[in-house]
């Protein structure tokens, strides 16, 4: 009986994982394909409240808010994936380097981490994004250069701890090469940390992209990005057009939560304590 219950929990996690991946991939593809329709203006249908034919309503230029939201989200997801991947790679390389290349390298990398963590995220993001000429590259560069620090710290600490653990030192005495120990004994510890860290970077990346775009330092205003949609809707909110901000905002929150859930699922699945569940 107990065994069956546990098995269900693992299956449930797998299903959640599949749903999250399917939703995110679906939104990304749909947004890219339906990009044209997000830009179509039609003054005969402006300012419509949400209805069956326009689920999210239309805006003051008669643009379909559903199409705009999905396209905006797809841009956000793409930026999130790129930025999270780049910063996770930076974090992995610097974290391992700090732990293995001796005291001096460690001191320099730790100092760099402290330096970046010491500056408020959003400020540094705006500076880098602005310096890189705003737009898509600016945002990706800004997000990836500011978000690697905490994951790098985690990886560094993990490698340092592993290096001194009894079982790694025993493996050395059993005559295994450094490379083999790294592969067989260290990677199984590092990969889950790395993957979970990577996935949990997505929501940060997406929210920061949306916020600097909202503040006007990110993507250009012609693009239907979530940040642009939200900041434009602010002007119309007071005139009672609540649907302009509500649905895109909700969708953004949903996406971020799904990524968070994805990370949590991954962590559960790779934890040996739950392997038989």
């Amino acid at each position, binding site marked *: 009986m107990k065994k069956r219950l546990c098995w269900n929990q693992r299956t449930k996690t797998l299903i959640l994982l599949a749903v999250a991946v399917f939703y995110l991939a679906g939104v990304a593809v749909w947004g890219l394909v339906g990009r044209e329709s997000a830009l179509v203006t039609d003054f005969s249908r402006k300012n419509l409240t949400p209805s069956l034919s326009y689920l999210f309503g239309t805006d003051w230029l008669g643009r379909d808010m559903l199409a705009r939201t999905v396209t905006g989200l797809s841009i956000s997801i793409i930026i999130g994936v790129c930025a999270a991947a780049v910063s996770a790679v930076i974090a992995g390389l610097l974290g391992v380097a700090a732990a293995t290349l001796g005291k001096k390298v460690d001191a320099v990398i730790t100092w760099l981490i402290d330096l970046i963590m010491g500056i408020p995220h959003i400020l540094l993001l705006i500076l880098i994004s602005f310096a890189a000429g705003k737009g898509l590259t600016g945002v990706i560069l800004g997000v990836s250069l500011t978000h690697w620090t905490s994951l790098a710290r985690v990886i560094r600490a993990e490698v340092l701890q592993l290096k001194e653990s009894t*079982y790694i030192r025993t493996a050395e*005495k059993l005559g295994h090469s450094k490379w083999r120990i790294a592969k067989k004994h260290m990677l199984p510890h590092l990969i889950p940390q790395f993957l979970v860290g990577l996935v949990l970077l997505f929501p940060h990346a997406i929210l920061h992209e949306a916020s600097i775009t909202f503040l006007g330092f990110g993507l250009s205003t012609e693009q239907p990005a979530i940040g642009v949609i939200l900041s434009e809707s602010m002007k119309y909110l007071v005139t009672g057009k609540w649907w302009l901000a509500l649905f895109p905002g909700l969708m953004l929150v949903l996406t971020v939560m799904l990524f968070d859930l994805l990370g949590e699922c991954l962590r559960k699945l790779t934890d040996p304590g739950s392997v038989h569940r």
Partner: protein
Amino acid sequence: MKLEARKISFRYSEKEREIWKDFSLEIDSGERVGLSAPSGFGKTTLCKILAGYEKPESGVILLDGKPLSEYRGYCPVQMIWQHPEYAVNPRLRMEEVLRDGDQVEERVIRGLGIEDGWRKRFPAELSGGELQRFCIARALGRRTKFLLADEISTMLDLITQSQIWEFLIHETKERGIGLLCVSHSEGLLERVSTRRISLENKEQEAIPADM
């Protein structure tokens, strides 16, 4: 073969007291040396030095006249730790732990009472005693010449203890492996060892160094 500690001194850091001072010890292969001393005397530290995990501050560990640190690859002196739960990787199945050893024979695995069902499990799913058998098996690889057993059976019940020690005595005799058995249990040391060392009088040397 002969494992020899020649005038070794050791402390964990500059500020701390000297745990060992000019200590010498010789173990021949085929010999089973029983070592007993009160807690905190540095028995585990001695095992770590003899197995090459720690470097002595002065003095040298010789295996057949050659410094142990010059042996590359598989270390012929293997140590079995008091706490098996730290000595195995929590993310690897037990069969991988056995594979880490130097071609551990099936006979050894059977002799230690390891059941087939245990091999597919993770360390967290075995008891301390069951884990310790894997650690002993792993240390009994093909090229092992000396075995340092640091209170390896304290977590076992008496019947299992005697089963494991019977096997270890038989195995070391057969293969000419030298054994250092560290324990608090008088009865066990009496039964296992061919020679006894007691470190009660080391105190006189240790305390002045501390002052």
